[in-house]
């Protein structure tokens, strides 16, 4: 009895969205209702923005909140026309900052994590402790000195000013070190070296594929981190053609205070900016299984 249940559970846990049809267990109405209330709370603002972006500027403040209207396409057209498609440029900028930033960051982190997990060398403990201290540094506290230093070399108000500080992720290095330690067997590395593979080839052809699922997780972490970081681009950038979507919409909202017609554009812009990231999340859901404490990924 016990063994069959255990087996059943093991397979259920392996297939990702775990719905476990098990032994006859009395379903808990209360527990299910609590979960559904939580889901409702989380979905409500998203549902609102869907409805609100279909309203005209006049309807926004006059009709019932959740009463949809027919102006979604007009609103998208109006938003797209705003200053020659500036909104879409913000979207492209965000994709650049978060996509390129996260990809390079994963490369940097995986190399460092691999070195920390798989080599013995002088200064290893020191480097690892530095990285750990870096995890606890409140990132945004760095923003002002980072701005001043980049201003010294004339890099503020450029793409670099947002990209470069986003590349280093002590937490990503920490995670990569654990993934490399857990998923790359030493014997395999030795075998590759015996066969004459260079250190770089051993890393890129053997270690990276084995660390794969973990690296996707680090990529997602970093992607969301950069997408979410408001203060860094807010401080670094003055030219609104370089803005990511967050800083751009913040600016639009500020304009709304004097011209309320702007609000429909802000709301439509918010809706459109949620869509790509929500899709990315739903498709890559299985990679969001980070055991922070054990550091392993169950993907």
């Amino acid at each position, binding site marked *: 009895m016990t063994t069959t249940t255990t087996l059943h559970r093991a397979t259920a846990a392996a297939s990702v969205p775990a719905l476990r049809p098990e032994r006859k267990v009395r379903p808990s109405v209360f527990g299910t209702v609590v979960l559904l209330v939580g889901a409702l709370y989380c979905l409500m603002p998203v549902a609102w*923005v869907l409805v609100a972006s279909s309203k005209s500027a006049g309807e926004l403040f006059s009709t019932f909140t959740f009463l949809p209207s027919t102006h979604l396409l007009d609103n998208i057209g109006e938003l797209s026309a705003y200053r020659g498609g500036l909104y879409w440029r913000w979207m492209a900028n965000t994709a650049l900052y978060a996509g390129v930033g996260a990809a390079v960051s994963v490369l940097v982190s995986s190399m460092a994590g691999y070195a920390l997990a798989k080599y013995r060398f002088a200064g290893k403990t020191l480097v690892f402790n530095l990285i750990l201290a870096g995890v606890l540094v409140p990132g945004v506290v760095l923003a002002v*000195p980072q701005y001043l230093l980049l201003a010294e070399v004339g890099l503020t108000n450029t793409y670099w000013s947002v990209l470069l500080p986003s590349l280093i992720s002590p937490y990503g290095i920490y995670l990569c070190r654990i993934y490399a*330690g857990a998923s790359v067997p030493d014997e395999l590395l030795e075998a590759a070296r015996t066969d004459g593979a260079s250190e770089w080839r051993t890393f890129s052809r053997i270690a990276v594929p084995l660390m794969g699922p973990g690296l996707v997780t680090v990529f997602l972490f970093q992607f969301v981190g950069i997408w979410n970081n408001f203060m860094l681009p807010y401080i670094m950038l003055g030219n609104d053609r370089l803005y990511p979507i967050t800083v751009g919409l913040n600016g639009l909202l500020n304009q709304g205070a004097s011209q309320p017609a702007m609000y429909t554009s802000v709301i439509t812009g918010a809706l459109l900016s*949620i869509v790509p990231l929500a899709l990315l999340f739903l498709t890559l859901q299985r990679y*969001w299984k980070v055991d922070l404490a054990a550091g392993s990924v169950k993907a």
Partner: protein
Amino acid sequence: MTTLAPPRAAATSGPTRRRGSRRRGAAPYAFLAPALTLFTLFLALPIGYAVYLSFRTEIVQGLGLGSGARQEVWAGFANYTRALQDPEFLASVGRVAVYGLLLVPTMLGLALLFALLLDSRRTRATGFSRISIFLPYAVPAVIASLLWGFLYLPRVSPFYYVFDQLGWDVPEVMSSGLVVFAIANIGLWGGVGFNMIIIYTALKSIPTELYEAARLDGASELMVALRIKIPIVMPSLVLTFLFSMIATLQVFAEPMTLRPLSNTISTTWSPLMKVYRDAFTRGDIYAASATSVVIALATFAFSYLFLRLVQDGRAFSQESK
């Protein structure tokens, strides 16, 4: 720039073992070079620079015109005493303390509850709930604040519509007394799902045998959760608490975004907003640096004390299993 290049020199050389092991001596440093370069330039150097600036100040001679009129000099601890005695700074610390006390326990409590319910055999619709509760994590804080900001406006909010129908006179949530709840709610909305997933993943890694025996002995789901599951996921709870606390001390995007929708959020509502105002509105980078250093030290002190208090050596272990 050369330090950033991957160690590919090896590709041209022959497969002899001796040369391989000699090269391996440099390999870890080559792998670490990009990370350490970036770490130095964008973490260590800015911290050092902030500390340096926090001990400096500018004196203005005469009318402050001309090139030699402004001079940077050592200030000792003057910036720090000024920062720590600044009533605006102390008020912002007080607001963030209230914000953190509201947000962190609520968020982690709910995250733990949801995770346990998802892991329980007795709940239904878990797939839908898990995705829905996690979804807000995909919404950046600025966008989340924007959505909630509109939902807080009595003219737009469905809640105020209901209150009106019922004839209740509910005060505006963005009025001065309640705005901290408004901001904490945005943090809760954005963070509960992420923390839930972290705890849920830890729960899934518990071997079933551990509580199967307890179940056979007739232990209820509640007992299994309290006596077996929660103690095992404690290290995850410790880390989620730590990260939530660090994030709390840095709250910036939410109040900055709500500001245009509310007139009760000052430019120094949170400590970081004060840093921003000092540095970029007033141009006093010295005071801003001192305040930054104070926030960083406070974060370190909190993290250290907290880990000391609860640490059993499992979180952030030096060696992986």
